Structures are given as structure tokens and as C-alpha cells.
């Protein structure tokens, strides 16, 4: 019985561990902002709203400028599926709708993390995500994604 109980507990612990690992994997993509942005952390829901074009401005009034990778990028695929729960194609179609309706500024599509970092350091309201956080320039800042 005890063994059985222990086995069950072991499964539970393993499951819990798995979830933790998963969360850690998720958090391996880190959101970066321009240094001037006062935001210190961001929730998944807010991120979702921003990346699907529902939020168009930061709390301080600055227009949000999304920077994203092209649809065939692995990092983009992971981000779309983990954070937005959609395929990059679906996200692209949403952006077609959103931009053609004129509600928000279309995302800037870049072809590498360096280009992304450069663009964000130059644009006050820009937001993007990267995998490699080493040697981050002074003009950028990282913020964590928190679960609510």
C-alpha cells in the first residue's frame, strides 16, 4: 500500500517537476523593451493582448511597436504556440485583419535577434522577445513574464 502510495506521490512529484521545467522553458524566451519603458514585468494576458493587436499603447501613452520574426522562424513558432496558443499563420492572419482595419501599427518583421535588438534600442515603444540574453546593450531591458 505504502509503496503504491509512494508510487503515486512519486508520479505527482514528477508531474509537478515537469510543469516547473515547462515553465522554465517558457521563460527561456524573454521579453525585451526599450530602456526608457518603465514596465518591470508583464503578464501572459497582457503580452497576448499586445501581440494580437488589442493593446495599442503603453500605460504612459507611448504607441506600442511590436517587433517579431518571420513566420518560418523557430523562436516565433515557439512564442506563438506557447504564449498566444496559435500557429504563426493564424497570428499572421490576425495581423492582416488588425493592420488593414487600421487599429494598430503593423508589427515590424525582422530576420534575426541582432536586428531585433537594434530596432528596439532605437524605438521607445518597441517590444520583442529573444532567446539569447547575453551581452544585452544598455539601451535595452529584460522583463519577466509572470503568470497570474
Amino acid at each position, binding site marked *: 500500500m505504502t509503496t503504491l502510495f509512494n508510487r503515486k506521490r512519486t508520479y505527482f512529484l514528477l508531474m509537478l517537476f515537469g510543469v516547473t521545467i515547462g515553465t522554465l522553458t517558457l521563460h527561456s524566451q524573454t521579453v525585451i523593451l526599450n530602456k526608457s519603458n518603465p514596465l518591470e514585468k508583464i503578464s501572459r494576458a497582457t503580452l497576448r493582448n499586445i501581440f494580437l493587436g488589442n493593446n495599442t499603447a503603453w500605460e504612459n501613452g507611448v504607441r506600442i511597436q511590436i517587433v*517579431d520574426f*518571420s*513566420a*518560418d522562424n523557430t523562436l516565433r513558432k515557439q512564442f506563438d504556440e506557447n504564449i498566444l496558443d496559435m500557429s*504563426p*499563420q493564424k497570428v*499572421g*492572419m490576425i*495581423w*492582416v*485583419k488588425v*493592420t*488593414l*482595419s*487600421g487599429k494598430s501599427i*503593423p*508589427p515590424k*518583421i525582422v530576420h534575426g535577434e541582432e536586428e531585433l535588438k537594434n530596432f528596439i534600442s532605437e524605438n521607445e515603444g518597441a517590444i520583442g522577445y529573444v532567446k539569447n540574453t547575453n551581452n544585452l546593450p544598455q539601451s535595452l531591458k529584460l522583463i519577466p513574464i509572470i503568470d497570474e
Partner: protein
Amino acid sequence: MKNSFAKILHFFSGSLRRRLISFLSIFLMLLSLIYYFYTLSVQGAYFRASYAQNTADVLHALKFGMELSLQQEDYASLQKIFAWAKQEHYVKFIVLVSEDSTVVAKFPDNLIWDNTYLSVKPSLQDENYILKNKFVSSITKGTFLVGFSTQIIRDYESKILFDVTVSTIIFIILSILFGTLFSHGITNPLEELRNVTEKIATGETDKRVTLKKGTDEILSVSTSFNTMVDRVLSAKKDLENDLLEAAEFVKAILPAPMKHPLPIDWRFIPSKRLGGDAFGYDFLDPNTLAFYLLDVSGHGLGAALLSVAVLNMLRSKSLKDADFKNPTSVLQALNTSFQMENYGDKYFTMWYGVLDLQTMQLKYSSAGHPPAFVVRRTDGTKEVLKIGNSNFFVGGMPDYDFNTDTVTLAKNDIIFLFSDGVYELEKEDGSMMTLDEFNTFLTRCCERPFELDFLIQELEKIKKPGPFEDDFSLLRITLQF
């Protein structure tokens, strides 16, 4: 309806002017209508062709731009392309449908698309201008539809319809004006020619055509016409002069009026055309007076010559087998000598009388001639006797037996011998005076001595103004001795 159609037909087939006007106007109107339909069809076809080309260009540009910007997720370019498409006034709506039938994008926003149904229902013609095209990109692939408005075609067509209709109406009005003016240019001189001809026909022989402008056939016709009228008039004048001379000659061989042994007076007014009247009187012996008057049929020189010939025979007593004291004998001799087939179908009427001054017996015979009138006054009453009988005219029938009658006259009777030209006068009301009216006229007219000039004056009051139409011959013998 049928009546008015007949009226229209009558108008078009009326005068030369109307025919020309209608011909020219209808001709130019037909030209206008050809221009009208030709312009409409050609302009319309041209505009439709350019419209089709334009829509195809727009569709091509949209497909190319969309594919490229979707491939690269260049949303800014996509925005620009859509913004451009919205500005294209041909584009009415755009629907972008992905492979799984979801609407990726659309314009305008309130358009509802579920693959078969369009909420912004274009008009019937617009539906013919929905163009479809497939597209492929990294995000999605599918179809896009562009609805092109044909309003612009209808606007353009109604605009050219208006323009062309207005210009055609103006053209038609100008056609009628031009047709009228042109026709007047032709028919006005013709009408003047007609007016002048009519005036000359009614006697205004001094009228001429006064056209001066132009060098065309009508002018040369006018000139020839004037020349012709001049020539004809001069020929007519020559002829009139001849007739006048002939009349003078006739007058010259008439016997002079006399006072003794009894007063005889006469008036002879030859007509312009010379009527062929002649008369004479002659004492066959101191107590026997023969007097006569004849009127040759027709007018002119022929009639005058015949009357002079007859008169000469009577005067010179050269008539064969004639007893001049016997009217029957004289008329029969004349009838034998002057049969009409030998004298150009001319015959004559004649009154011949022989008066015995002692017995006062008058033997007379009239051949187709009006009777002589004898005015007699007894005890304050005046009566007019008709002295004549009804023989056939002279020259008509060979071997005709002329009848002689006798009447006894009284002293102071007045004999009037005359030709029909004296009483066959056209009165003011257009009717002819009759012999009976002349009889009445003589009864009422005058007191003795029946002054001839006064009689003529009175007759001229009755008749229509103008010269005597026929020879006027009036012989008056007063039985006073």
C-alpha cells in the same frame, strides 16, 4: 388621325419651297440621327473597353502586391496597397478569403461574406464585375475577390447620352434652319419670277424680274425671261399699231354723217383687237335709202379685212345679181359670195334695210343680227319697237332663203342700228347687259334728239370701267324731213 396624316403629306408635297425644305431637313435630320447612334455606340464601347482594361490592371496590381507583402509579412505595404485600392474609384469592395474559408480581410468593414452571400449587395450590373483571383503566401493562401463598380459606366453613358442628345437636337434645329434658308435661296427667285409672270399676265406689262445677285441658272432664266417679255411686248405693240391703222382705214371708208335730206349720225369705237364691224347707207334714188350694218365673227385683221371687203362691194354696187332695193336679194348675193369655208371660217351677221321716204315703208332683213330699235313718241308716251327677223347668219349655209319683212314707220321715228358690242357690256357686278336691258335703257334714257355722245356717256356709267371689249357701232337715223 388619317386626316392629319393626309395634311402632313399634303404639306410635304406642296410647293417647291416646302418640298425643298422638308427634303433638306429630313436629310440632315437623318444624318444627325446616324451621328447620334454612331457616337453613342462608339463612345460607349470605347469607354467599356477602357473600363475593362482598368479593372484588369487594378486586379493584377492587387494580386501582385498582396502576395508579395503577405509573403514577407510586410503589413505596412499591405496597408498601403489596400489604401490605394480604396482610393481606386472603380473598386467597390475587396474580400480576402483563406483556404479554410475564413475571411482574412475585407473592405468595407461592414461587408459580410460567407462564401456565397455578399451583404453589400451590388447592383445587378455590378455583379458582373466581381473578379476573382487566387493568391499564395507564407501566412495563408486562398482567393480574393474584387468588386468593381459599374456606376461610373452608367454615369458616363448617361453623360454622353445627354451631351449627344443635346448636340443632336441643336444639329436638327440647325438642319431645319439651314434647310429653310437654302430652300429660300432657291425658291425666292422662283417666286419672284412667278409673281412677275402673274402680274404681266394680269396686264401689268411694265413689271420685270429684278434679280441681280448670283450667277446661277435662275439669274440667266430671269434675264432671258425679261428679254422674252420685251420682245413679245414689242411684237404686240407692232401688231397693235397694225390694228390701229386697220381701224383708221375702216373708219375712213365709213360714210360721213349727214344732215340733209335727213339727219344720220353714227359712232364707231373700234376695240383694241378690232372687231370686224362695218356699216353704211346710201340713197339708191332720191326717195330710197338703203342702210346696213354687219359684224364679222371673231376679231383682228382677218375680221376687219372681210368687213371692208363686204362694205366695198355694197358701196360700189359691184355685188353680182343683187337688187339693192331688195334685202333678201342682197343677203342672198352676199351669202353666195362669202361662204365661210372660203374665208377662213369667218362669217358675219348683218342687218339690211331699205326705206321708202314717201310711203315710209321699211323693208328689212336681219341675218343672225340683233334687231334695230325704233324709238317712237306718241302723245307723250315713248315706245321702242324691235325691228328684226330671225334669219341664219351670212356665210353659214349656201342657198339659204333670207326672209324680208316690212314695217311702216312714222315721221320723227328714230332708228337705231347697232352691233352687239353696243349692249353686250360687262356691268359692275360682272354680269352681261342683255338686249332687253338695252331696250329699257333706250326707253328711259333720253329726250330727243338722243345725242349719241350722251348715250355713250350713260352706257359707260353702267359698264365696268375700261375700254369697250368689242367694236362699238351705233347708227342713228332720224326721220325728220
